[in-house]
């Protein structure tokens, strides 16, 4: 486009638009293009594997972990938990990009898989009385839920830091996806350690923190990931 046409367009803009253009131009500084979704997701994957390895080196894996991994129900539960954590982390990073187009399909898939994950303890594992679960929790000072939180928190912060450097137009969804990913990673990690494959214990101590606290990453995400627009 020639200089004269450009100058004509500029002069035809209303005064407030021209001033805005001048301000934005004055603010322009060299920037590094943001890494791709895949690049950020791989960084998260490496960090998450390190977090899991560190946690297991501190608390130790359960005695029969290899048998459990080979077993259809317990291996399936672990695989689904970690795969969902990977999927939700991907969606969280993707949704933090400004050109992300929301689509119901990933939400529906995630909801169905989460529902199945929550129903697995009922379908495949031994029933245990709730009173016994609570009594044990009191005795070991809620070790399992605490571990879920301790694994979830740094991975969520790490994911959040990456997502906040992008430019999310859907900050609450970004917060929700990243929160789910972090809690699922925590639930998977504790399940590698905890040998109690029992319905109530798995639901209350491993999966319930996600249901109870998911509002927090959504709420914080609404502010944190929208800050770039302020």
């Amino acid at each position, binding site marked *: *486009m020639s200089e004269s046409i*450009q100058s004509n*367009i*500029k002069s035809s*803009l*209303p*005064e*407030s*638009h021209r001033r*805005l*253009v*001048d301000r*934005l*131009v*004055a*603010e*322009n*500084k*060299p*920037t*590094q*293009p*943001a890494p*791709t979704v895949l690049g950020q997701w791989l960084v998260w994957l490496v960090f998450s594997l390190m977090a899991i390895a560190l946690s297991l080196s501190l608390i130790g894996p359960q005695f029969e972990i290899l048998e459990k991994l080979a077993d259809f129900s317990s291996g399936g539960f672990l695989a689904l938990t970690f795969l969902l954590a990977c999927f939700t982390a991907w969606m969280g990073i993707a949704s933090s*990009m*400004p*050109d*992300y*187009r929301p689509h119901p399909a990933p939400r529906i898939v995630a909801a169905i898989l989460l529902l199945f994950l929550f129903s697995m303890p009922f379908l495949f594992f031994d029933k245990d009385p709730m009173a016994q679960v609570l009594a044990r929790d009191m005795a070991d000072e809620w070790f399992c839920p605490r571990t879920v939180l301790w694994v979830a928190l740094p991975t969520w912060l790490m994911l959040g830091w990456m997502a906040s450097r*992008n*430019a999310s*137009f*859907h900050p609450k969804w970004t917060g929700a996806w990243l929160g789910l990913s972090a809690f699922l990673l925590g639930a998977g990690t504790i399940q590698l350690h905890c040998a109690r494959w029992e319905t109530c214990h798995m639901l209350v101590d491993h999966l319930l923190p996600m249901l109870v606290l998911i509002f927090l990453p959504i709420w914080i995400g609404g502010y944190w990931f929208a800050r*770039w*627009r302020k």
Partner: protein
Amino acid sequence: MDFNDDQWQSWTQLMKLTQGGDKAAYERLLVEMSPVIFNFVRKRVFNQDHVEDVFQEVLLSFHKAKHSYRTDLPFPPWFFAVIRNAVWAALKKNHKIGQLEVPLEDFFDIASLETMEDGIDDRIHQALAALPEMNRQAVELLKLKGMSVETAAKTLGISSAALRVRAHRGYALLKKILKTQVEKNK
């Protein structure tokens, strides 16, 4: 403006230069894009009073999101996805602000509930004086001096969107202050 591959290639090139910090390239890009964005916004915003505000919000969003464009990818899909998202976000924000808006008449309704002997004007002026400076200025210019949003924004040297935000926060605070006065005097 005719759109063809050359135009998009030119914009892709300008984006590369912009990300490198080239101000002249960025100015050219913004000036060339403005009519396209404005038309895009105008077709999607039914309330014509909001078109300019939304346009400015969109331009600001584009400015803040431009680091996320990867120059090895085609520019048009990224550009239109960002603009579409920005329009949606700006409309949502305007809708929220609209919901928070308190018509000036409501202040008189609230003030008339009061049984104090001093005049309504005095009470409103007292409440106005209690507002933070920037909110007070916005409310005074729009509601007491009757200026248009654009003129008031020019007077204060800020964007129309920023003025609306200041004014709406001012209305909400004013309502709160007047309500407190009424409750105190009951």
